[in-house]
């Protein structure tokens, strides 16, 4: 043997920094079998799985995760097709008392299943690809929003979707905004304008007004607040500026959540390769990353470092926050809200599963209750059932509605005028199941904190 054939890497990792994924970066396949060591089969994950609760055919997260991984061998790669029934709500992660990387196992298994076992010529594959690449669809659609909205509402489109694509016709497609968030942002003057406003706000608050402020955030708006609910994005910008934060809006693509759920890890990685460098550059400039969608913040925080080996992925993960969470930690939100009022005092709040996984399920009610007269009702611990693209698939529609039933009942029983949640697809389900109009907590916050000014001029369905 020549020395040339010897490994050149002299670094010997100590046992302390052992991580199963990083120990052999040269390997392209992930081996999560050691993750099964943490499972002692208590089945708490199974009892918390909303899909298993309503679908007897679904074997549950314990089987999908540690059991299936433990049964694998090197040349023995078939993944049971039931993994496609997992809705990726990730409640199992939250339920597990023993730190089994369940959703990572599910995501990886699903990716493997789609890549190796699902026919690339099947309609299911292309339907899933279409759904998980919502941004591409939305990007095109929002160029001519009125036409698209008209087309999507047509009976013939819905019949085509149902019969050919197996996208349920029970649901109405969310309308595209006539002006996207980014269009609004650019027209408003982008970062330069935000810096001005933030500086003025800081001055009014008696804080530092120099350029060397650490009050800077990079807003990850995601696809839905850009194309469908720009009022959420606008609310975030205004609330943060109110507290003196300069808002940057880096270039970005989908966070990847719908892609993991459909096993399209390649698509997710391509998007991540745009997002991570853009967000890492903003962090370099002193910004923290803020998302208004809890699935987006979840993805940047948890799935990115679990699934992708991209430079800067850990910096992004460590510096990403959810919109309300960041303000709770860094500002005196309660003090600020004292004595404020809102026109929307009666709210039925649903905590999205992905918010729960980040420990954020209690914050919206706690924060908003500080506003005078607000009655925010928590509608319980159940999952809304839609889980992103899951409930859009014709074959999952009934399961999705069955899972959501408990939430619907609690919403009906709540004495409220509006629904409230952070998650775009939970809001679709809440609206679909109950008829409520659904708001984002940041919209209520903006309504309470900001009087007049720009808020009044906001277009569309916002709480103005």
């Amino acid at each position, binding site marked *: 043997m020549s020395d040339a*054939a010897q490994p050149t890497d002299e670094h010997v990792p100590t046992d302390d920094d052992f991580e199963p994924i990083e120990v052999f970066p040269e390997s392209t396949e992930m081996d999560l079998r050691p993750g099964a060591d943490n499972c002692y089969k208590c089945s708490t994950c199974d009892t918390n799985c909303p899909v298993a609760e309503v679908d007897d055919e679904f074997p549950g997260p314990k089987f999908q995760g540690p059991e299936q991984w433990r049964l694998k061998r090197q040349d023995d790669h078939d993944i*049971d097709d039931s993994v496609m029934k997992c809705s990726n709500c990730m409640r199992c992660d939250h339920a597990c008392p023993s730190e089994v990387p369940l959703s990572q196992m599910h995501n990886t298994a699903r990716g493997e299943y789609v890549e190796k076992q699902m026919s690339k010529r099947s309609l299911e594959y292309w339907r899933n690809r279409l759904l998980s690449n919502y941004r591409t669809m939305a990007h095109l659609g929002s160029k001519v929003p009125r036409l698209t909205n008209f087309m999507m509402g047509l009976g013939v489109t819905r019949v085509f979707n149902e019969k050919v694509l197996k996208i349920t016709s029970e649901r109405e497609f969310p309308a595209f905004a006539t002006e996207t968030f980014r269009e609004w942002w650019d027209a408003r003057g982008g970062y330069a304008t935000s810096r001005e406003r933030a500086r003025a706000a800081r001055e009014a608050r008696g804080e530092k007004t120099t350029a060397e402020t650490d009050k800077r955030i990079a807003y990850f708006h995601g696809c839905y607040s850009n194309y469908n609910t720009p009022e959420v994005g606008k609310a975030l910008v205004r609330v943060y500026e109110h507290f003196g934060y300069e808002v940057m809006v880096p270039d970005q693509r989908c966070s990847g959540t719908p892609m993991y759920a459909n096993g399209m890890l390649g698509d997710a990685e391509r998007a991540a390769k745009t997002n991570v460098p853009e967000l890492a550059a903003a962090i370099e400039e002193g910004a923290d990353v803020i998302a208004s969608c809890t699935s987006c913040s979840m993805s940047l925080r948890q799935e990115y470092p679990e699934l992708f080996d991209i430079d800067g992925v850990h910096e992004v993960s460590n510096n990403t926050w959810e919109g309300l969470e960041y303000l709770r930690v860094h500002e005196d939100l309660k003090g600020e809200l004292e004595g404020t009022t809102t026109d929307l005092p009666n709210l039925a709040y649903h905590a999205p599963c992905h918010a729960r996984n980040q420990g954020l399920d209690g914050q919206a009610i706690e924060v908003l209750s500080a506003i005078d007269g607000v009655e925010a009702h928590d509608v319980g611990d159940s999952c809304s059932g839609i889980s992103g693209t899951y409930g859009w698939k014709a074959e999952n529609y009934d399961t999705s509605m069955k899972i959501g039933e408990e939430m619907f009942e609690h919403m009906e029983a709540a004495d409220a005028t509006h629904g409230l949640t952070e998650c775009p697809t939970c809001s679709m389900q809440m609206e679909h199941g109950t008829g409520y109009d659904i708001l984002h907590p940041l919209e209520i916050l903006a309504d309470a904190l900001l009087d007049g000014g720009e808020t009044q001029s906001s277009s569309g369905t916002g709480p103005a």
Partner: protein
Amino acid sequence: MATDTEVLVLGGGSTGCGIARDLAMRGLEVTLVERGNLTHGTTGRMHGLLHSGGRYAVSDQASARECIQEVDVLQDIAGHCIEMTGGLFVQRPEDSDEYFQKKLTGCRECDIPARVLSGAEARRIEPYLAKDVKRAIQVPDGAVDPFRLCVANAHDAERHGARIETHAEVVDLLREGDDIYGVTVRHDSGPGKRTHKTPGTTEDITADYVVNATGAWAGQIGAMADLEVAVRPSKGVMTIMNVRQVDTVINRCRPKGDADIIVPHETTAILGTTDEEVEDPDDYPEEQWEVDLMIATLAELVPILKEARTIRSFWGVRPLYEPPGTGTEDPTDITRDFFLLDHAERDGVGGMTSIVGGKLTTSRLMAEKISDHICDKLGHSASCDTADVPLPGSENLEALEDAMDEFGLRSPVARRSTQRLGSRSREVLQTTDPNPVICNCESVTRAEVQDAIAQSGSDLNAVRIRTRASMGNCQGGFCCQLLANELHPEYDEETARAAYDELFQERWKGERHALWGEQLSQAMLKYALHATTYNADGDPARTGTDVNFEAFDGGQTDTEAGPSGVVATDGGPRNRGGDQ
């Protein structure tokens, strides 16, 4: 009560079962007796390494050649018992270059295909190898399931007319003058398939010829007829990991030593082993430091082992033997070859031969040689077919892959089941009855459990070795009671309870050596389930005490149930009642 047979084989391990199959196929009338389950002795307590011969290529080239030949044979006749994983002899920087070279030369001299890999190449095959391994020799090692191999041999022997009696302990050798003519056995529960709680009986079995294939226990059998068989039992510890950290057999490439093998075995990896002579093969200390030392040593090759979860440890006893006067001090130096001791030639006592030494990989060849000897003794002429006729389960394995979809099982379950059952899959798994998974850790379905019960009676440990049920990470925590339940209604409640207890005890025997980290949590959960939830400790059906039903109240009635309404599965709505 006495029965007669042509050949009586003592010992239901790999040697005994192999001999029984061989002789039965040659047309002799064979009876085999075993004091426990099949594989109860050494065969069921080994690491399951199918040797390419690489391990013996320096020290014992005759054995090495036999190994590589038998690996070929076993692939043909026992495909469902083995997994050709390939093997690596891994050299660390501190290991001798000279020995590495000797190993390579030795492999080539013995016709064992061997290829040198750089450290990086070895790690590409096994990513969890230590970053600083220097190089490796790749050889065709594999993994063998000793239970399945042994059971298949016994099963085939029965198909050829043999009588196999488990739980039948030899209590005396029948000797008249210079002739041994049979044994007295004590049946734990009457002859035939085991049924717990059936009263035991004794039986004299007379035979034209007796084969003592009791391995480490051969000395004890010999002593019953005042014959000295100087077996030197040597214990070795093995530890079972929860998952396969490696998919290839890993050997340390150095002259000899403890703790130098990792064998990927089914869903687990088995670490082995140590070598220490003991007095009594039934009574020797099992000490934690042996396990700790082995994990620490093997972690030099595969560092992740230090943090990984072990599910149990067990000790086996090698039946080492050396001819009188050799005087080897260190048991690792004693040859692994087998010895055929014809007591007529050796001691002037006819009618019996003792077999000692040997190893699982070459057990078929060993059985062939011994059977030749016995046929010679009996003047029976028939040729040996065991190298050509597949074992039950290993016929037409190629057709199996296509059949998996037919069983209506989830794909990992179907895959594991068919790997265990081989060509018997269709016969066992094709059922119109509901076929739920009974053991989730190892994916064993009811149909497979019922098949095993049909073979072995109420003995759940016999079901275990046939199916792997209860051999996964929960060690029976979630399936012991389900397995016992499968015995009903054919067996009554009392029998099922006794079988459950016995399986539970057997699992605990190995689990108690793995009580730290996650496996401790597992054991506590198992305790909570069985002792608390199932009340296994204080079950009145077990203790015989009467239950005072008067002490219980009538339970909640509708009128007491509080405010009416549907109680939600999440523990009730937080939004009702106005108090936020």
